[in-house]
């Protein structure tokens, strides 16, 4: 019976191809715009590491001006970054499963061959745990261990694009690369990796590419590295040299830990509180105790990585879909009611009201699904266009979830648009239309 009714629905659409095309386009346009917006919003606000987002914690200590909070709109928040002193100090804890202080520096890289000139590259200074914590995928080799962290050993890990650029993409593990004034051995090459957003460091461009090179954190004093990310300070200090920079109250280091259980989390919280209290007795940390451990999604929320545009586009797109649905209702009403005589005959021949209703709702759903297909195709084009316009290589794409969402949207739109016209047509009295011959 369902197949029969489905076939009837298709036949009805084929009977008036222009009108059917118009209906499909009407709803398809609305689906296209909404799906594109929802996809963009979903990608921007999605969870970049869902299987671990609740055990990874961003560490914040409230090291700021005694009289004014870091964010006056949200006084309960602490600054996002730590000082070098504090980061290196709390790295001593043995509580977390994994932990890393990290920041972004910039170095001159001297490629091996004479064809390439030296270039400037962003480098992430971090500990070996970084790769384990954030499930960073390796194509060749692996990260470094604690001993390498401590020394520090002159080893680096490079990203897949960097590997392509320097070595043509071959297995470059074991080769050396000159950075600034010394040579580093490559011990790992990453597989293509682009967390969206760049949750481990949302400063700067949260949707940009990860750094191309990773180096043990403890080279910071050795190479006299300054942060090329955000640096915040609440007090004026005269900083004459790198040592002064490291010892200052400038905040430029992100700290992440992995805490797998509630007890572990509590233990770490206690550790942080004890540390800060100790520092208070030395005259630091003038603000009230406010050490925070934020999971991934909360961190992203507080950094406000989702651009406002995206949110307003989402709202507007859904309203656009409503307008398209209204147009579809209008067309459907016209089409269905002009068929009233035929329906009158069917009803006189014994078709029940509900079967007429279902028949028409089915027809609307077919239109909805066809429109959804068209809409998804259009939204792929739109997303590609946006990718190209932004030309930062951002990857806005439709994944299976979004395709599913688009189809769901089209089914719902078809239903909503179709309910009223179908209800109207099934209430047509058979007698009236039989008479008018």
């Amino acid at each position, binding site marked *: 019976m369902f197949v029969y009714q489905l076939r009837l629905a298709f036949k009805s659409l084929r009977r008036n191809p222009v009108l059917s095309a118009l209906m499909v386009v009407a709803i398809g346009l609305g689906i296209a715009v909404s799906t594109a917006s929802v996809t963009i919003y979903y990608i921007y606000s999605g969870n970049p590491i869902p299987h671990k987002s609740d055990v990874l914690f961003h560490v914040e200590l409230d090291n700021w001006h005694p009289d004014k909070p870091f964010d006056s709109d949200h006084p309960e928040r602490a600054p996002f970054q730590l000082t070098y002193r504090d980061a290196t100090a709390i790295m001593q804890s043995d509580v977390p499963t994994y932990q890393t202080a990290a920041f972004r520096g910039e170095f001159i890289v001297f490629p091996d061959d004479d064809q390439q000139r030296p270039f400037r590259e962003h480098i992430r200074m971090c500990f070996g745990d970084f790769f384990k914590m954030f499930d960073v995928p390796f194509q060749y080799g692996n990260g470094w261990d604690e001993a390498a962290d401590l020394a520090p050993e002159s080893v680096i890990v490079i990203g897949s694009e960097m590997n392509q650029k320097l070595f043509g993409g071959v297995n470059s593990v074991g080769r050396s690369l000159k950075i600034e004034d010394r040579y580093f051995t490559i011990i790992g090459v990453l597989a293509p990796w682009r967390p969206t957003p760049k949750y481990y460091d949302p400063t700067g461009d949260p949707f940009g590419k990860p750094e191309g090179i990773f180096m043990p954190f403890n080279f910071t004093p050795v190479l006299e590295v300054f942060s090329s990310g955000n640096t915040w300070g609440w007090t004026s200090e005269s900083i004459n040299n790198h040592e002064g920079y490291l010892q200052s109250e400038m905040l430029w280091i992100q700290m992440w830990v992995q805490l797998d259980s509630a007890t572990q989390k509590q233990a770490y919280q206690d550790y942080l509180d004890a540390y800060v209290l100790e520092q208070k007795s030395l005259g630091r940390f003038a603000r009230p105790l406010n050490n925070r451990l934020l999971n991934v999604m909360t961190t992203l929320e507080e950094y406000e990585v989702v651009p406002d545009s995206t949110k307003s586009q989402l709202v507007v797109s859904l*309203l*656009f879909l409503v307008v398209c649905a209204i147009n579809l209702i209008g067309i459907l009403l016209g089409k269905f009611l002009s068929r009233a005589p035929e329906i009158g005959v069917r009803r006189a021949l014994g078709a029940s009201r509900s079967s007429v209703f279902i028949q028409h709702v089915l027809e609307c759903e077919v239109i909805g699904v066809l429109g959804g297909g068209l809409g998804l195709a259009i939204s792929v084009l739109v997303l590609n266009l946006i990718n190209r316009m932004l030309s930062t290589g951002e990857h806005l794409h439709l994944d299976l979830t979004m395709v599913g969402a688009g189809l769901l949207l089209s089914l719902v739109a078809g239903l909503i648009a179709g309910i009223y016209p179908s209800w109207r047509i099934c209430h047509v009295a058979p007698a009236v239309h039989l008479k008018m011959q």
Partner: protein
Amino acid sequence: MEFGPIFRALLNNRTRFWLILVEVALTLAIVVNCTSIFLEKRQSFLAPTGMDTDNILAITTEPFGENFADEEFVESVGEADLRQLRNHPSIIDATPIHFFPLSGSGSSTGRKAAGSEIDTVEAGYFMVDEHGIDTLGTNLIAGRNFNSSDIELSSDDDAPQNIIITKAFADRVFPDGNVIGSRLSNRDNEHTGTIIGVIDSMSNSWPRAGMGGQTMLLPGKPRDNREMNYLVRAEPGAIDSLYTELDELLVSLENDRIVTVRTLSEIKLRYFRRTLMAMKIWAAVVVLMIIVTSLGIVGLTSFSVTQRIREIGTRRALGATRAAILRYFLLENWLITTLGLTIGTLLTILLNYILAQYAEAPKIDWVLMAGGATVLWAAGLLAALFPALRATTVAPEIATRSV
């Protein structure tokens, strides 16, 4: 003008009425809000920067030679660079600088009038030498430019500097006037600088931000190998040739460094790239909405005409001329559109409120609202014209047909 009957008829046949009314109302809300956002973004992009943006080049040098560790070497290279640049026939002036304005990268801090109780005001700041103002193309409206002793003083990190600020910053920090010679302090009331000059306007590194026009210029010259960047102001028309020449020129002076040349316009475009794209999207949405709604009105009105052929014939039989039929349908459409636009005005404000809570939304300008309503009113009229004209072709004898 048959307003009464038309209105009563619409109330009796609710569907047609509500469909068009809701569509018009929603479209007005969307069109006005989107246009508002579009205009705001456009405004932020087109706002004057206070600088001669079209003719300025930004040069980044990244020294990697070992001798750059020596401060004196850095200074001498800096001086040589600037001398070469300033002597170039196509270059008006050049200044050393670290971060570039309009780039989204820079330094900012909070300052207040010394001794004042009010909180500090945020400002972006740049370190330039006495050629800074001319290179930037800003105008000094009070006080004086930097001189060599200001530059010398800048090497002492602890001493308060002589500072030039923008009028926007001056108005906030010194609302009573008396700017020149006044002192600035930080939040801890430490004296950090004295104002020696005011320029009319200059965008800092974040032109989109609220504090985008609050800028301070500090005197200085490159002392550190990390700070050897330059701004160069080209003679009108010369910027294209300089764009390709300059990196070779500087590398030839000193080989152990990477030189990158960009125009300030390029930097501004990159900073605004998301804004520009958003603008395109909002403009497209507005156009699309108007088209879709107009087509919708054509369709719905057309459907209405088709449903009412017998009525039209009867009216003609009762004495309506073709003009009267046209007038009737246009009037009907006018009534629905006007009611729709009225409700749309409320919806616009509501949508504006929702967007403001949840995302971004500039306040609605009443001129824009009136403009949007007029455009939609005209579009609605035009859309209804076609079906209305079709209605006039219905022959009176339809009334006597029995089917």
